[in-house]
């Protein structure tokens, strides 16, 4: 079925991919957190719109959870952690922005090819939404791999989870209880990561992964 409603769903999914690219582009920590909040906001809008199309009220709850936790709570808490630990605000990059964006393009092409081949019989719009969701997951992984700062690793991990939520809401019929449990487990994981960051910073005075690598243990 074509029509404006489905075009808007498509636009929101494409917007999520665009925001993932914007996350890859950032090299300052506060800007990254703001973009991540935007990521979660777009996700919330997308889930809410899916709830409207599919007439599934439990997805509204998912949207509100995404909005409150990931767009507001987590960025604010990460902000506080950065200030308290005094983490320096520049993100070190393993690969420069230009080649990273090229790799991102390649990942988008790859996920389009894979998804469009694997789901050959399904509804064309659902296939493309799934392809976008896979793009977001892969771009989140790319961010974890090409950035050295521990906070950016957390953000990358969160955006992977956003991509999974997008995929799950796009394919109709994910029950609410699964979403609640996923959200709570993410919250717990996040608190644990926060505590770890605290301890790491206390002990080693830095959260740069390359520096931490030196303390890993004996090299034979």
């Amino acid at each position: 079925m074509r029509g404006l409603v489905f075009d808007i769903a498509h636009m929101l999914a494409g917007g999520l991919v665009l925001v993932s690219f914007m996350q890859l582009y950032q090299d300052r920590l506060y800007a990254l957190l703001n973009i991540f909040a935007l990521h979660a906001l777009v996700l919330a809008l997308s889930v809410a719109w899916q709830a409207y199309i599919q007439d599934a009220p439990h997805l509204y709850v998912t949207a509100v959870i995404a909005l409150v936790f990931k767009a507001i709570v987590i960025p604010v808490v990460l902000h506080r952690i950065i200030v308290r630990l005094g983490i320096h605000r520049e993100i070190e990059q393993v690969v420069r922005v230009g080649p990273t964006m090229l790799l991102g393009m390649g990942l988008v092409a790859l996920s389009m090819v894979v998804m469009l081949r694997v789901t050959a019989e399904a509804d064309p719009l659902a296939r493309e939404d799934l392809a976008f969701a896979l793009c977001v997951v892969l771009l989140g992984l790319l961010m974890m791999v090409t950035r050295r700062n521990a906070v950016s690793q957390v953000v990358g991990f969160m955006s992977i989870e956003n991509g999974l939520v997008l995929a799950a809401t796009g394919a109709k019929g994910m029950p609410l209880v699964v979403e609640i449990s996923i959200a709570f487990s993410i919250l717990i994981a996040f608190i644990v990561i926060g505590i770890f960051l605290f301890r790491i910073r206390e002990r080693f005075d830095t959260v740069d992964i390359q520096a931490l690598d030196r303390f890993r243990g004996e090299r034979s």
Partner: protein
Amino acid sequence: MAVMLDLAVQGAQMIVVLLLAPLLTGIGRKVRARLLRRRGPPLIQPYRDLIRLLRKEVVLAENASWLFRVIPYLVFAATWVAAALVPTFQSGLLFSWSADLIAIIALLGSARFFLALAGLDVGTSFGGIGSSREVMIASLAEPAMLMVVFTLALIAGSTQLSTVAAFMTSSDVGLRVSLGLALFALIMVAIAENARIPVDNPATHLELTMVHEAMVLEYSGRHLALIELASQLKLLLYVSLIGCVFVPWGMAPAGAGAQALAIGLAAYLGKLALGAFLLALFETAIAKMRVFRVPEFLGAALMLGLLATLLLFVSRSL
């Protein structure tokens, strides 16, 4: 008779475009000043500046060549022709088929080619800085712009701007991801090509921060007036382009009557004012980038354009 009327409308568009360009700059400066809590110059100040410059004597460097004196006219001619070919208040003008979007971009490219040569002509370091940075920016901005053109051409089925504008007003186009990405990329390219913050500062003359202003440093008098008018025309061209493709409502179709033309003109003025306001807002909110961050910025625009084109190649419904 109809041909005479069409010719008159085409001529009117060329005059309108020429007359409105300084006004666009004036609105932008006023809005920026107000946002910075200043009163700002009056809206017609750019007109006064141009007339003042036109009346002044040209002071030419001793070793400037004939090319240096001819280039302002070349740049102005190329930019004016390109700006006159972008539909403003009516699409499907008499000569709109003589140059499509690719040719318009190439005309702007030739204006830039000659301006870069002018920077090198006098043989000082300032001009060299401007020219070398300008061609670096162009080497990424032009491909990004061409990718946007490809996206539009693939969606609308034509590279003719009038056909694209007509297609966008019709209901065949949905809200497409590629269009959104193309709009993003086009805005980034427009900022870079018009030498706006964050790529270049149009109001400064420090060599650390200038690209366009460095190339035209040696120009004075009527030559400088023509170059300023050409850059104002270029800004008008880009705002009109974004307006006619992404905000096409209100434009009169080909061969419409006087009432539709009046509505088209009013809609066009509204779009220009809105464009100037948004540009000034954006420029005030953001700081200028280091010169070597600009390739990353434009590389991102190129990637977005390429992504938009790729999505269209891969799936016709995206």
